[in-house]
């Protein structure tokens, strides 16, 4: 991150006001205010002066992956607890995405399924950051969150600006304006949430479903937040959950006992072929290609988890 510059910009009326765009960094405060919602809220904006491409580097073998995103064909985003990377060739090569120095650690990543250049990163204790340009510039997005202890993120399956955040000890919050403002939805599942995913599986009263990976199986709720239910009888500790956008009733769960798959929206689960003993992150591309991370290695399956190969091989 040598070429990364985080700029805390102008202060006005006691609030830190800034801009994401270098060309506008010295605009009048009133210009900035006109572009930003929630005038009274505290905003601080940061941008990276260098592109992520310039900061390209290889990942250390001992860097355990905690998150994977694959919202675009052949483009993967992966995160360790300390760094964020992107690959534009399905995992063959990686470039590091610079993050503001205020981000002390990464807890979760979400990528817009509609605009893959839109990224969200959460750091436990650092809140939510949003980028509209693939990670070159970042904006803090925490208005309405009760604390910065965001431990999980999920982008809506079909709505570009809707994103969900799980705040430790507070529950699940929803933003319908790209993180501009967050609204409390419910307390979330009773059990510890390791991550969750939004799905456009049919049958919801509203627009879709949320599947949460918890310490006691997979929990499921319609996105109207009308109550969390156990998704089937899978009572394992679940590290990650994903669904197949091509067949939304097909849901995957990574547990300490391997990978499980459900073909009926989480009612019945069966063991699937697992590429490794412990899977720490899981995601499915729009095509249905499934990606699983174990340690620092990423595996890919193009046949719904029946067979696996290492990415970049």
């Amino acid at each position, binding site marked *: 991150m040598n070429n990364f510059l985080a700029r805390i910009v102008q202060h006005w009326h006691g609030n830190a006001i800034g801009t994401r765009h270098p060309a506008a960094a010295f605009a009048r405060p009133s210009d900035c205010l006109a572009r930003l919602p929630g005038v009274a809220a505290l905003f601080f904006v940061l941008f990276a002066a260098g592109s992520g491409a310039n900061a390209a580097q290889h990942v250390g073998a001992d860097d355990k992956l905690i998150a994977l995103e694959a919202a675009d064909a052949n483009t993967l985003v992966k995160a360790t607890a300390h760094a964020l990377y992107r690959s534009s060739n399905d995992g063959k090569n990686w470039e590091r995405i610079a993050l503001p120095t205020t981000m002390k650690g990464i807890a979760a990543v979400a990528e817009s399924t509609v605009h893959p250049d839109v990224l969200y990163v959460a750091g436990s204790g650092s809140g939510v950051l949003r980028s509209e340009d693939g990670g070159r510039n970042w904006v803090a997005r925490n208005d309405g969150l009760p604390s910065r202890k965001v431990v999980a993120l999920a982008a809506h399956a079909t709505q570009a600006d809707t994103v969900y955040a799980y705040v430790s000890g507070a529950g699940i919050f929803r933003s319908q304006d790209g993180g501009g403002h967050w*609204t409390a*939805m419910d307390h979330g599942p009773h059990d510890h949430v390791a991550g969750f995913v939004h799905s456009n599986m*049919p*049958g919801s*009263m*509203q627009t879709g479903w949320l599947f949460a990976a918890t310490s006691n199986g997979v929990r499921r709720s319609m996105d*109207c*937040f*009308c*109550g969390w239910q156990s998704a089937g009888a899978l009572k394992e500790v679940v590290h990650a959950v994903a669904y197949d956008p091509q067949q939304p009733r097909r849901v995957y769960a990574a547990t300490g006992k391997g990978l499980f798959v459900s073909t009926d*929206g989480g*009612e019945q689960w069966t063991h699937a072929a697992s590429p490794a003993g412990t899977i720490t992150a899981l995601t499915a591309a729009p095509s249905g290609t499934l990606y699983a991370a174990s340690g620092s290695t990423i595996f890919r399956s193009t046949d719904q988890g029946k067979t696996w190969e290492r990415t970049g091989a």
Partner: protein
Amino acid sequence: MRSVSPGAAIALFAIATLAHAAGTGSPAPDRMRLDTGRAIYQQRCAACHGAQGEGAPHWQQRDANGEMPPPPHDAQGHTWKHSDAMLYRLVSNGWRDPFNKTDRLTMPAFKDTLSPNEIRAVITYLKTLWTPQQRRFQREESRHQPFPPDAQ
């Protein structure tokens, strides 16, 4: 609320039509629409959702038939999380929980028995069962998802 006589139905419809200030954005639901909604609720909805909107016992767990029991409509439930447009659709078209073990609708459809304004009146009544904070949330949810034009 299984049946309403034609005369009563006409009267209820007329009352509901005259009432126009209730619902989204209105600080106080219109009294006539509210009375209409309360009457319809007791006739049509209370048998399943409870006279006070308290829902069926154990409503958060599937029953012996594998169906979700009728939930509360009061502050303990989740009705307040839905926009006016969605509540209208649910009452009008009904809804089936996709994980129910039976094929029947979880929530019956009322579009053939209640007029658009009667459906709106019932929903207006339900709002009286919520906390002020819940009403604010639901009003915000309804800002871009209001009642359909024929129920205005």
